[in-house]
């Protein structure tokens, strides 16, 4: 690999990255009142015969009715673990992608019932002349296209004012044929596959 373009970027501590707070289970859910103590006890399943299926599936099927639509945090979780091509550090920790720069909007605002959605991701290169911005953009695009259902349109752009040749890069990222051609390139796909390896 050629000389690193930015050898000493700022790194955000992983604990400070945005995460989804899991709904905390209310204390009374456990038969013994406390999750902590329940974990200290051996099994508390009282009776295999009568408790077999209904209790374990019951809560699930209740929840099943509640939809959890794809939101910005979910998009963020998909792309923040991609590694930077220069450092073995995630795009999230380098603040190349950040939660406020992601939006999920209906693709056709005029048709309220349409399930089509557009995901827009603005990426912030670590330095303004980073020649790898295109590769990063491409990586984000590939990851999202692999991971989102067909009704989602993906739009990846360089955040305004963060890159010297942003327009050029944006044009490249938006051009379907150029993206397709890039993905035929074995070396480039190798780099992208390596970036995506760390996705969890």
């Amino acid at each position, binding site marked *: 690999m050629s000389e690193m373009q930015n050898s000493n970027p*700022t790194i955000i501590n992983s604990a400070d990255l945005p995460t989804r707070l899991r709904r905390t289970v209310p204390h009374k859910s456990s038969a013994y009142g406390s999750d902590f103590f329940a974990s200290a*006890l*051996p099994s508390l399943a009282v009776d295999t015969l009568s408790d077999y299926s209904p209790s*374990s599936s019951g809560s699930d099927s209740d929840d099943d009715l509640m939809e959890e639509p794809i939101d910005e945090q979910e998009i963020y979780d998909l792309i923040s673990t991609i590694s930077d091509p220069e450092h073995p550090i995630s795009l999230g920790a380098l603040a190349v992608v950040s939660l406020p720069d992601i939006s999920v909007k209906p693709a056709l605002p005029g048709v309220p019932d349409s399930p089509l959605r557009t995901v827009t991701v603005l990426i912030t290169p670590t330095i303004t002349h980073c020649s790898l911005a295109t590769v990063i953009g491409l990586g984000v695009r590939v990851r999202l296209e692999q991971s989102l259902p067909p*009704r989602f349109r993906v739009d990846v752009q360089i955040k305004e004012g963060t890159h010297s040749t942003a327009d050029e890069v944006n044009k490249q990222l938006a051009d379907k044929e150029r993206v397709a051609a890039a993905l035929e390139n074995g070396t480039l796909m190798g780099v992208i596959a390596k970036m995506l390896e760390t*996705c969890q």
Partner: protein
Amino acid sequence: MSALQTFMLVVDHDKQEARQIAERIAQDVESKKTTLVEIVQSLGDYVNDEDPLLRGKAVSYLSAVIKALPPKFLTRQQVQVLTTFFCDRIEDAGAVAGLETLQKLDRFTKEMAEELAIALFENFNTLQSRAQSQRFQVYQLLNELMSNHRSVLHNMGDTSLVGTVDLMTGEKDPRNLMLVFSILKVIMVEWDISRHVELLFDSVYNYFPITFKPPPNDPYGITAQDLKDRLQDCISSTSHFAPHSIPALLDKLDSTSQNVKKDALNALIACINSYNPDTVSTHSITIWETLKFEILNAQEEFLSDLSLKALHDIAKRLSEGVAQIHDQLPLAQYLRPITKECNEQLREPQQKQAKPAQNILKAVSEASAASFTLIVQVVVAPLLTLYQGADGITKQRALLETLTLLFESAITVFGEWTTRSPEIPDENPLVEFKDQFSDIFGQALMGTVKEEVSFRISALKGFLRLSALRGYFHESEIGLFVQYLNEILLKEESEGRDDLKKEAITALAEISKHQPQLIMDITFPAFVATLPDSDEGTDTSYLSTLETLAQISVEKAIFETLVRRLLTKLSLLLQKEQPGSAAYPKAILLTIFYVMNQRKLEGDPNLEMYYDKIVVTLCQAAAATASGKSMSNILSDPTVLDILGRLCNLIVRSLPRAKQDEVTNNIYTLFASADDFQPVPLSQSPSDDRRRTMILSTFLLAGLPADSTLPHSAANMADLLADLVKLSIAETSPPTQLAILRHIALLVNKFLPKSDLGVANTLLNSLLPTDSTPASETTPETIKTVFWLSKALILRLAPTTTQILASLLSLLSSPSEQTSTTASRGFAILLKDDDILSPTNGANIRLLSKQRVFTTLIPLISSKIREINIQNSDAATTPKEHDHIKPAHLAALSGILSTISPTLVMPELPTLLPLLLQSLDLQAATRDSFAVRAATLQTLSVIIRENGVGVIEECGHVQSLVTRLLKTAEHNRSASASGGGAVNAPRLRVDALRCLYLLAQPPSAENAPAVARAGKLSPFLPVRSQVLRALRFVLDDPKRDVRKAAVDARGAWLRSIEDTEDDD
């Protein structure tokens, strides 16, 4: 033919025979039938023959005869003559062997040794052209000389040094090199090598790096590591090598091979640790300049770790004998460029390069008190200045973390409060910053907005390290920290995941190890004060308080106080007329149980007190409650009784035998007098409340030794068991019933003597339905009892195990759907780990019981299902009466699968796989289908993870498996909306996707060597596009967890299966 001629004929092909000839001649010499002179003369012309082979054999003959002689036989003069003879012919095969025998003799003198050594060094110029075994013999001889006559060789000085180097130059065989390296090491360490340093160094360094790979099935057992170790010992043997070795090793760090770099770093570390400190000092800065790049631009973590170790070891060596710290110390000179570099990198501590700089500081500062002091002097003040001027919390946080690493070094150097090693006399250089640290960390912890959780956690961790550091903080300063922690736990609202609170609890628990008194004085009263006297019902904040108390009460003193206080609270609650809900006393009991479970009770001086106050008193109270003689009804709550039971069980197990016998007599009376409480077994229709006390009785029973003399069992247990079975069948309250069932199982499994097993079998048979039994009599309660009885017998592998399993299986084919379904669930009971009928409680659980059950049942279930499948296809048109039988068998199978270790499953896989696939087909046909499919997917995922796809491919089920998994992963909107048809609960969908993900994982290296896989098409190629297409739609699942699993599965299929395709 003479002995010599026979010997020469056989020596090549029959070593045994040759040795016997030599031994015979040796005896002749001993008994003076012949003399050595005659033997030498008999060699005659052979020793002067043109043919080296003939000469060699002749000399071997002499060597063999000498070897066979007793060690003291030869006179000094004979030894001399023979030595000279052999030395003259040292190039002939056999002479070396003769010399090796001779040099071991007591009469072998120094002069002879020298003669031998000279002969060795002068005559083997062409050693490397000889066979490996001959070379080995020569080295062996030299090695023997080294150990038996080292002083002679040592006195020869340069002659032996150069001679040895000449002998081995060009050696390539690993077996010989092992020997050569160890000979050379002796010379390097003990000889005066000053005139030949480079020669000697080159003689070994030529072999660096070792690239040897042992041949497959290596017969000699020499590994590359053995060679590396010996070579490294040579390189690091003497400081004289330093001018050559250190630059050479540092050069090797430019290599592109990581293995070479690793060997070089390891050798460098060995040199640092063995060269004298002055030498290390000379090279220290050069080493730092080179290693710096390995750490700051680390390619591989292990290389950076080794480099850090090298820097650490240098600091350690340079600290040797340092009495007073000043600028001119070699150590100070070494550290100066290091601290300068680190200070520079740490100016922006949130950036990437700061991390390696922190690691360097940590590694070097923990090397010694001197090193720590020198570093603290120049590093801490700039860090504090940076902190004051830091513009953002990220930067501040990184600074706190850097300081915390230094605190950790301080702990390594000076120890914790609990460290037993003698205290370091040096003053801790951090002392002058004590107030500043206390301010900064306290401010960061308590004076920051609550949202900055991770920042506060960093501050907390730093503060905790300082509190643990031996002799640093004053008690009152740690007390302040403890108060902060109290405040966080008691006053602050929950924030997100409560990470800060969790850390605070951990911190208190750790402080309790160092300073239990502070916890007792500050935390304990504050927390106990918040515990209410009674439960008002709505406020459950006491729970988190109790949780915290339980976790910090690790130390003995705190533990004892906690138990006393809680017992007092509990007895107050029990005396109240209206004590509110049972939740509060239950939580108190749980807390006591938790802390007691964490400690070893055996030998606890308070055990008697716990026995009296908990087992005796509370059991009596429960008995009184059951007889309606108590004001409080807390002890009639089954969950309270359950926890009290567990607590009693814990205590009973640890009691001395005499006390245990006392418990034995009170299992059923519960320590109450006959007037107050009538025991349950063998009494007339006991009330609900009384029957409920069986929960306690069961726990008491479980804790007793197996040879206890139980009540009601004088002759045998038949009556007691029959009565309990009657009770369990009639029982309507599930907790009580479970207790009675466990009680029966304990009696049969643990206490019933082998000779009385018939009693249990008879009882079991009486419960099993026969053809004439009306279906209504086989209630679920009866079936439950049948399974628990069976469980008890099967776990101890009673002789009737096979029959029992067959009768249980026949329940599944019952025409009554209820019987069949209930029984199918019962199979999950059989092998399920139970926390009462457990090894801890001394249950009789044979190791092979699980395997036995599995291997007995699988063929039976499999053939039954095949039978049903055939019937169904034959009678496709006629209405099927017994639709429930097949699902019941599959449910039974899943019950067994969910309770055994997957390794047992593997050998039966070909039989099992079709059954598993059919289980996945079970849709909403029965209400158990969810559990069955969940268990099936669990088993499948383990099979796939352990064995990869190989087995499934061999059985030819790839396509059908993938199709079924995809079907299970589907979210069927219309079906769930209409409430009918196939519904896959989210967990099933996730599990199915997880299996798909595992399928696409590349097989782990050891399972499938790359060679075996290469050139083989992935078995998934035919289904790849089907999977990718189907998963695209699963990506739109309404549930987030399902989508996540789908993303992972799809990613795995895109990645790995495409790769295989490319390769071909």
